[in-house]
C-alpha cells in the first residue's frame, strides 16, 4: 500500500518518484516476487538473519584481532588491545527497464504484462545470491559452502545410475563426522533435470530414491555448479540480509522507466563440516 511505497524506511529506493501508479507498482512487485521465489535456493537451506534494513552494514563474527597497542602517547603497560572483526554486507543492484506502455496497460487491468527484462533481472539477482552462498564471493569477503567444505569432493557426473551411491556416501561422510540430518541436496538445473527425468530399474523414480537417502529435500538451484549435500539441522549457514530484495527507481524517459533490483547481504559458514560438495 501507500505506506509501503513511501515509508521512511525505504526512502532510498525513490519509488515515490517513479511515474508508476500504485496498481502497476503492485503488479511489478508481484511479478518480481513470483519470479524470484523459486529461484532463491540459498534461502531454502541457510538460516535467515534479518532483514536489518538498508542501514545495516555488517555482521559481527564474534572474534577479534589483536592491536599493536593503545593510542600513541598512552602507556601500554598492563593494557591489552583488540579490534572487533566484522563481516561487511555486500550490496548489488541489477538494472532493468519497464516500457511505459506496459505500465499504462497494467493500469487498464492487463493481466499479461510483458516484463521480460524484469524476468531477466530476477534470474540474475537470484544467481548472485545463490552463487555467493554456495561458491563464494571473494571480493565481498564471502566464503561459499562448497569452497569451505573440508571433505574431498566426489564426482557426481552425468551418469544417473551412479547418483544413489554418490549421494549415499556423501550422507555417510557427514554422519560419520557427527553432522546430524536430515540432509538436503542443492543441485544445479542440469543435474536436477537429469534426476527428475530418470526412472530406475523397476520404475522407481530416482528423485524419490535420493530423497529417501537424504531424508530431506532436493533443491533446484540456478547458479550452482554440481551439487552440495548439507545438513538441514540448522545453524550451520547464516544468510544475514540488510535490505531484502527490493525494487527501486533510477530514472525514466518518455518511453521507458529504469528500475533496479537491490539487495544487501552477507553470508558465512558457521560449521564447514556440515556440507560436502559434489562435482
Amino acid at each position, binding site marked *: 500500500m501507500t505506506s*509501503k511505497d513511501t515509508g521512511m524506511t525505504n526512502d532510498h*529506493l525513490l519509488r515515490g518518484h517513479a511515474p508508476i501508479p500504485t496498481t502497476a507498482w503492485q503488479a511489478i512487485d508481484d511479478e518480481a516476487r513470483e519470479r*524470484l521465489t523459486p529461484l532463491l535456493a540459498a534461502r*531454502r537451506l541457510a538460516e535467515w538473519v534479518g532483514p536489518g534494513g538498508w542501514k545495516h552494514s555488517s555482521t559481527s563474527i564474534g572474534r577479534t584481532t589483536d592491536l599493536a597497542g593503545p593510542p600513541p602517547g598512552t602507556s601500554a603497560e598492563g593494557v591489552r588491545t583488540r579490534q572487533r572483526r566484522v563481516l561487511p554486507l555486500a550490496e548489488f543492484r541489477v538494472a532493468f527497464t519497464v516500457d511505459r506502455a506496459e505500465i499504462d496497460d497494467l493500469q487498464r487491468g492487463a493481466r499479461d504484462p510483458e516484463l521480460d527484462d524484469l524476468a531477466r533481472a530476477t534470474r540474475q539477482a537470484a544467481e548472485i545470491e545463490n552463487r555467493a552462498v554456495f561458491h563464494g564471493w571473494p571480493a565481498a569477503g564471502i566464503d561459499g559452502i562448497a569452497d569451505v567444505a573440508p571433505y574431498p569432493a566426489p564426482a557426481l557426473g552425468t551418469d544417473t545410475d551412479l547418483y544413489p551411491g554418490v549421494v549415499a556416501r556423501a550422507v555417510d561422510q557427514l554422519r560419520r563426522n557427527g553432522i546430524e540430518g536430515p540432509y538436503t541436496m542443492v543441485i544445479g538445473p542440469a543435474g536436477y533435470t537429469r534426476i527428475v527425468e530418470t526412472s530406475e530399474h523397476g520404475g522407481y523414480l530416482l528423485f524419490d530414491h535420493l530423497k529417501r537417502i537424504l531424508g530431506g529435500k532436493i533443491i533446484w538451484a540456478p547458479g550452482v555448479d554440481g551439487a552440495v549435500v548439507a545438513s538441514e539441522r540448522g545453524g550451520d549457514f547464516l544468510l544475514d540480509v540488510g535490505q*531484502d530484495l527490493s525494487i527501486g527507481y533510477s530514472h525514466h524517459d518518455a518511453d521507458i522507466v529504469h528500475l533496479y533490483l537491490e539487495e544487501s547481504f552477507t553470508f558465512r559458514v558457521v560449521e564447514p563440516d556440515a556440507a560436502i560438495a559434489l562435482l
Partner: protein
Amino acid sequence: MHALVRTLGIEAPVHLDQGDGLLASRSRSDRVASVAVPDITQLILDDHDWFRREFAALDDLQAQAPVDPEALAKRWSPLAARLDVHAIAEEEIFYPQLLVHGDDAEDETLDAIGDHNDIRDGVHAAARHPVGSDPWWEAVGRARVANDDHMGEEEREGLADFRRNASPGLREALGQQFADFLDRHESTRGLDTGDKDPERYVRDIEREIHPPDDGSVADGSLGIGSLKER
C-alpha cells in the same frame, strides 16, 4: 437534505447539498463550525444518501423532453468523480481498519473491492461516450446498479460490523481522515482510479497488519524473506 452530526452532544443539522450537485457544503469550514468530528460510518452513509439523490436527479433530467446534455453533464460529472473518490477513500481509510477490527472483515472487504471495481467500470465506461447517448445511459445504469448493490451490502455488513467492533474514538478519528481525504480530492486528479485485485488488496493489508516474523514488509522490500520452511 440534512445529515445529523453530533455537536457537543446536540444533534445539529448540516446542509450537504446546495442543489447544484456539487459538494461545496462538505468544506473544512463547515466541519470546523460543527466542532465535533463525525464518525466515519456516518460520513459514508452521508455519501450514500447523496449518491442516491444524485442518481434520482439524473432520472428527473432523463424525464425532460428534450434531454439537456449540458445539464446531465453538470449533474453527472461531480457524481462520477465522487464515486471514484469515495471508493478510494474507503480503500485507503475504512477497509484497512475493518480488516483489523471486523468479525467477518475479509469477506466483506473482498466483496467491497469487487463492487468498487464494478462501479469504476461503469463510471469509466460512461466517460467514453457522449453524455446522454444510449451507451452513456447504459454505462451510468451499470454504475448505479453496482453502487446500489454495494451500498446496501456495505450498510448491512461492513459498516454494521465496524460499529459493533470499533471504538467511538477510532471511528471519529477515521471520520476526520475520511473528511480530510474528501476535502483534498474534490476531483480524481492525482488518484489511481484503476481496478484493484480484491485478493491482492486484502493480502497486502493483512501483511501490514500481521507482518511476517522476519519483518520484511516494513522495509519496502518484496517481502520474500526466508524460504527455509517452503
